[in-house]
């Protein structure tokens, strides 16, 4: 009986140990500020408490022996400590480190503007791109309201920080999209092939980008397609310029979207007379297929196919034959496919792999001449990521690019064709590390080695960027890198031994971000090496092509966005100062290229009027004069155009939950912007070179569209369930 008693006594004692221990202390952040409301407790027990406004906590526990003390607070890394409860009172003074994975931690921001829906560091969202007045749903159109870009109204592509249009490259899920813009003829602006709705995130890098990307001297536009299969729905767009229909089907772990589109500007151009003479208004038919399949909890395969066929015909005055018009007719076939795969390999490793293929065929008739250009591009890339810890990650990768070009030229239908062909293989390996030295400092060293098979040329490109978080809302970052890009195909066809051009970027950035307000200022310097250089013969054909061209670009980009101060209002302002000169092409000496405006300014405002269920928007863009060469003047590139103005307005009206009416007008003031002049090759009778202005296709562009979304349950009557 005694044993029973002892047994029971000890059992009771063990289970309801009467000894109480008080655990108390304080929770602070790295700057010794008290953290309020942190959850402090012993793991696997009910015992715990929350820290008070001064960061103090205190609780009692009956537990004894070894336990784990856990402290968690929003935005901070969870703290765990093994403790031994053996006295009446235990005191802990704990400092919580900011969660490095949370968005408040330092990130590399120099050079890059992020757009997307998930992250808080975003500058623009997909909706912003669609609803920016004047952008007309074009990604590059919207990006032109950000600093660092140039307004080049006769082209439509992205011109970044003194770089030409082809120096900005587009990557989709890491894979290069070689022909991201619709085919167009000289002086007729183009737009991007890809719909902004395809992407969850857009990173627009104006310089200093990661070692993963190359073949882009000035800018990388990195687009990542959406991951999550959304609901099953059908979207129909009816627009003054055409129509498209998309059906998207979502399953548990997969989704498939099919899109068909037809565009024809003929009816619009019939109603609204154009300043240019088009005998065949742009017409295109195309389709795309987007598929995603989740292969495991961490694995995902994405595939994307986009096909487009387009035609357009324009008559342009030929300044060398007064009274004569050149007829230009363009037919373009374009196919882009891309497949990418990512998966975790155990806890620390992950792999990302992709393959893209582009086929582009352009047939151009200029009067009787025929030019046929076929391009094929392959791009394969694999990257392994090793997450050593929360504070260090290493990426290593390799890529291969192939370009096959075939150009046929015939003076007229019956003459012999002249063939030019080019095959290029580019290989690269790269490695890059993200290292948090402290929670305030991240460095990203990287190195890349490129090999161009055609020229049998190696080059090494070091990259380095770092960021320092000055306080909760602001940070300073810097970047340096060498970037290589092979010359445009037109030059390589004339001389395949021309080597890649190189640009060195130096960037210093300050960023402040707080509650819907963003301020950025960035200074940069770029040095261009080995640009194309040639002389013109008597027929103005390029001869003696070489790589001795060079140049520089430096400037200041300022951005301010505020979406908090005005209720239902949102605005951003951008200013870019650009000082650049190049001695390339046939320039006799270093000069400012014709696409450059020294000052670029843009302002965008959006306001949602709840009572009208309408979002109203306006954007204003101003660019200072651009230089052009006037052969009547002694000096080279001495002419200056007038400044560029463009005020655009738009309105989106939510008629019903699933029906949106959208309208926008670009250049409402009807400013007659002149982008430059074309001069005759020979002087006229009076010894003067005649000229003609390069102008906008029309002073205004009016766009009206209706967008309808049909879902299974969006507006389906819910009453049947009652």
């Amino acid at each position, binding site marked *: *009986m005694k*044993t*029973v008693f002892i*047994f*029971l006594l000890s*059992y009771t004692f063990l*289970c309801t140990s009467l000894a109480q221990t008080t655990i108390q202390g304080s929770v602070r952040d790295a700057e010794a500020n008290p953290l*309020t*409301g942190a*959850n402090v*407790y012993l*793991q*696997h*027990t*009910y*015992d*715990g408490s*929350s820290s008070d*406004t001064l960061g103090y906590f205190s609780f009692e526990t009956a537990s004894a022996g070894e336990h784990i003390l*856990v402290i*968690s607070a*929003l*935005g901070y890394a969870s703290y765990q400590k093994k403790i031994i409860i053996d006295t009446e009172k235990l005191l802990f003074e704990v400092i919580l480190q900011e969660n490095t994975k949370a968005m408040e931690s330092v990130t590399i921001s120099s050079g890059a503007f992020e757009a997307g*829906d998930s992250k*808080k560091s975003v500058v623009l*969202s997909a*909706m912003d791109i669609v609803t920016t007045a004047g952008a007309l749903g074009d990604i590059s159109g919207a990006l032109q309201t950000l600093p660092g870009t140039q307004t080049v109204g006769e082209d439509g592509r992205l011109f970044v920080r003194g770089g030409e249009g082809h120096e900005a490259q587009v990557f989709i899920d890491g894979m290069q999209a070689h022909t991201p813009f619709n085919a167009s003829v000289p002086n007729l602006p183009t737009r991007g092939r890809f719909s902004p709705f395809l992407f969850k995130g857009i990173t627009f890098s104006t310089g200093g980008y990661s070692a993963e990307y190359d073949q882009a001297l000035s800018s990388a536009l990195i687009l990542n397609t959406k991951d999550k299969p*959304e*609901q099953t*729905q059908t979207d129909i767009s009816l627009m003054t310029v055409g129509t498209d229909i998309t059906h998207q089907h979502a399953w548990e772990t997969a989704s498939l979207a099919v899109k068909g589109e037809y565009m024809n500007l003929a009816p619009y151009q019939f109603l609204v007379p154009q300043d240019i003479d088009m005998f065949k208004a742009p017409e295109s038919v195309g389709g795309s297929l987007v598929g995603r399949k989740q292969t495991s909890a961490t694995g995902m395969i994405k595939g994307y196919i986009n096909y487009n066929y387009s035609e357009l015909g324009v008559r342009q005055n030929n300044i060398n034959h007064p009274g004569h018009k050149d007829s230009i007719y363009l037919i373009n076939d374009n196919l882009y496919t891309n497949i990418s795969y990512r998966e975790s390999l155990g806890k620390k490793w992950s792999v990302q792999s992709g393959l893209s293929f582009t086929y582009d065929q352009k047939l151009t008739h200029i009067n009787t001449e025929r030019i046929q250009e076929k391009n094929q591009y392959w791009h394969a890339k694999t990257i392994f990521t090793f997450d050593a810890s929360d504070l260090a990650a290493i990426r290593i990768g390799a890529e291969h690019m192939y370009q096959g070009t075939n150009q046929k030229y015939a003076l007229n239908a019956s003459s012999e064709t002249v063939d030019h062909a080019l095959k290029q293989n580019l290989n690269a390996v790269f490695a890059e590390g993200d290292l948090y030295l402290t929670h305030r400092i991240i460095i990203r060293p990287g190195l890349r080695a490129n090999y161009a098979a055609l020229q049998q040329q190696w080059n090494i490109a070091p990259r380095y960027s770092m960021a320092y978080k000055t306080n909760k809302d602001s940070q300073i970052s810097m970047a340096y890198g060498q970037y290589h890009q092979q010359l445009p195909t037109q030059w390589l066809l004339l001389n395949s031994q021309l080597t890649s051009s190189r640009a060195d970027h130096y960037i210093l950035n300050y960023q402040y971000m707080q509650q819907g307000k963003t301020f950025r200022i960035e200074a940069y310097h770029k040095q261009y090496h080995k640009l194309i250089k040639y002389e013109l013969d008597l027929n103005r054909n390029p001869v003696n092509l070489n790589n001795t061209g060079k140049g520089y670009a430096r400037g200041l980009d300022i951005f301010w966005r505020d979406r908090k101060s005005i209720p*239902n209002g*949102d605005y951003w302002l951008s200013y870019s100062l650009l000082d650049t000169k190049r001695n390339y092409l046939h320039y006799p000496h270093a000069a400012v290229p014709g696409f450059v405006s020294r000052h670029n300014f843009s302002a965008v405002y959006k306001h*949602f009027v*709840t009572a009208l*269920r309408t*979002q109203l928007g306006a954007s204003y863009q101003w660019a200072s004069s651009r230089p052009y060469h006037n052969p009547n003047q002694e000096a080279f590139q001495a002419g200056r155009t007038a400044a560029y103005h463009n005020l655009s307005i738009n309105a989106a009206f*939510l008629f*019903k*939950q699933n029906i949106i009416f959208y309208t926008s007008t670009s250049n409402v003031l009807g400013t007659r912007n002149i982008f430059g002049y074309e001069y005759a090759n020979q002087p006229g009778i009076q010894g003067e070179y005649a000229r003609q202005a390069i102008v906008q296709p029309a002073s205004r562009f009016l766009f009206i569209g209706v967008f309808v*979304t049909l*879902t299974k*349950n*969006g507006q389906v*009557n*819910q*009453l049947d*369930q*009652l």
Partner: protein
Amino acid sequence: MKSLIFTFALFFIFAQHLLADNGYEQAMKKGMDDLQNAGSPEAMNQVANYFERIASVETVQWLPNYYAAYIRINLGFMEQSDEQLDQVQTHLDQMMNKQKDESEVMALQGYLHMIRISLDPANHGPQLAPKTLETLSKAVQMNPENPRALMLLAQMQYGTAQFFKSDTGEACQMVAKSLTLFEQEKVASTFSPAWGKEIAQSIQQECKEGE
């Protein structure tokens, strides 16, 4: 004698287990009481912390997580904090994994989407509005007797109808139906979700004023 000791000891151990279960019940009861009395965001955060502590011990139970999430959604709304709401999503994801077919959890997910829309209608509305409807409809399908799922669906429909100046009749009918469900609701356990009746009543009030 030996068997007696054995029986006694066994009984004792059993009693201890009963007591432990009681511990959960007591802890939940205290949490529910604290929740009733929590007036300030600070107090609400403390209760949410408390439920999270219970959740860390009672890994089989989903209700502690449910209440932690429910409180944090309301906190996120009061403090207009996306960050709070991000944290809730993690809670919900964990619960979703365990309670795949629980209408209450699905309804809470819909509630979270709805609060997110209210924080930034222009940016979140277009994407989340259809998602909210889908999630809440799913919750209603899982359990047509769940008054909260129906009430939230009605609230969403009512708000949408008001915004588009269309007929609120359907939403009002739904609210009425949810109120009947609230009346009839047999709470499965003392701690089962029971909130939402006041919201339904206030929507019904608006419906009446609108007539």
